[in-house]
């Protein structure tokens, strides 16, 4: 059974159709790429999957059950985490507080043992994401790449994380941190079986990480397959280059 099944998903903003009849299926343990030209509806799709946008129509099924009416925090509690191209952090809090606040604010248990266990978990996840040396800094003091890593580390604090939705995790990030993020994704996938849906414009990263890639154009899914397959798909080439128009322009 698919971990995530999207059926005929559509999102309209007034007269603008951002996503139309999107259907896709992701198997557990997969690292799936979602690519497409700017404005094709990738982020809107991610927002609908995370519960930030209510679809105009269609269904989203997680482990076979519809989650389309669930608010974002319930989806997170069920094991779906989402990161953003511009990291959504608590800028005036320390890195460690960013890790701890969600768990402690939602838990009724506040015993010293629970808090200590949580602190240990936060330290472990920060070490995993190579952020342990900056745990005392305010989030706003971090570099862009470190902020992205902190979003990922914070996602790992979610109990029972199964599906990680990542929106442009490599955008504007230096090569060293990009490598750290890719290593983290592969390790989480190999060792914890976490499934990923990654939106990215970084084709080399997508090629390295994703077994299957979905391509969107003007709100629709136009191709699906390995990176090599979609790269040679005439529809994809036309979507990215403008097809014959581009050829005639040049």
């Amino acid at each position, binding site marked *: 059974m698919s971990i995530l099944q999207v059926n005929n998903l559509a999102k309209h*903003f007034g007269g603008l159709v951002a996503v139309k009849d999107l259907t896709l299926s992701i198997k557990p343990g997969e690292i799936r790429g979602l690519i497409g030209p700017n404005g094709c509806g990738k982020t809107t799709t991610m927002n609908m999957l*995370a*519960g*930030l*946008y*209510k679809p105009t129509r269609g269904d989203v099924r997680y482990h076979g059950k519809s989650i389309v009416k669930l*608010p*974002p*925090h319930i989806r*997170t*509690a069920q094991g779906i*985490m*989402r990161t*953003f191209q511009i990291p*959504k*952090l*608590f*800028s*005036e*809090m320390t890195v460690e*507080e960013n890790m*701890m*606040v*969600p*768990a*402690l*604010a*939602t838990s009724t248990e*506040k015993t010293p043992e629970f808090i200590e266990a949580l602190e240990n978990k936060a330290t472990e996840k920060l070490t995993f994401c190579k952020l342990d040396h900056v745990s005392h800094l305010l989030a706003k003091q971090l570099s862009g790449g470190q902020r992205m890593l902190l979003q990922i580390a*914070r996602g790992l604090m*979610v109990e029972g994380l199964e599906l990680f939705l990542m929106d442009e995790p490599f955008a504007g990030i230096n090569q060293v941190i990009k490598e750290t993020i890719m290593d983290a994704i592969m390790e989480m996938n190999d060792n914890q079986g976490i499934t990923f849906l990654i939106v990215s414009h970084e084709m080399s990263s997508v090629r390295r990480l994703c077994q299957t890639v979905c391509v969107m154009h003007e709100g629709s899914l136009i191709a699906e397959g390995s990176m090599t397959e979609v790269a040679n798909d005439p529809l994809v080439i036309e979507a990215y280059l403008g097809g014959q128009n581009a050829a005639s322009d040049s």
Partner: protein
Amino acid sequence: MDLIILTQYVLSGLVIGVIYALMAVSITFVHGMMKVVNWSMGEYYMMGGYIQYLLITMLIGPSLWFLGIPIAFAIIFMLGVVIQRYMLHPMFVGESERMDEYATIVTITLMILFRNLAIIIGGPYQYSVPDYFPPTDLGPLPISGNRFMALIGTALILGILYYVMKKTWPGRALLGMSQNRIGIQTAGINVRRLDEIAFGIGVGLAAAAGALLAPVFLVWAESGSVPTMKGFEIVVIGGLGSIPGSIIAALLLGLIESLGSVFISSEYRDLFGFVFLILILIFRPNGLFGDRERLA
């Protein structure tokens, strides 16, 4: 001018500033958390005053006046939760593009409703609450017992608020929401519940201010107008959403009003604050402690 008299005026200004601070903090708290301006804040202040008046005259008596403040806070907190849940929350459902406008319409409607309800129920009368405390001295400053208690009460309430926000995890979650609303939702926190708590605390603080200042400014249907006007003035001076900014701006406004009254004329007391506000808007449009927005 005699140094002692000048000190008295400075102290007097600071006392007024602290009293203003509570109302300003309640306004900026709601704005900081929910990013909406609550135009009915003065009416929660007014209701806090009425609750205190009713409690003192009918239930607890003048000697237990201090119990009225947490009671007023609790009652208006619950009212705030209900209002947030059923009148303001619908704005946050879906992807409303005109959230601010809806909030403005809803809260102005509530302002008119509550003010007229107060006139219908309490009549067009001003009610006086018995003094909380006899006149006393604050260093070289002779001060009315009511203002002295308002000073102590405000400091205490702001101290509790600081503790809750900085030292408790639910408080930090509220701070997290004020810093990144989407971040807090996707981190697994029920933002709807936080909104209710934030709005409840904000209006509860206004009610506590109304109960605390009931013997200073009297209780009547429009008693919230002046504190609200001062509160918004302070919030803009301090910077929208900045609680420390509101406290410092409140102290500055109190000082300016007090010293302006002495050196220029007490008739223009309210004008001094507005001149200060205009200067701030010209030279620091985001307020003393407001974040500068990146435009491009």
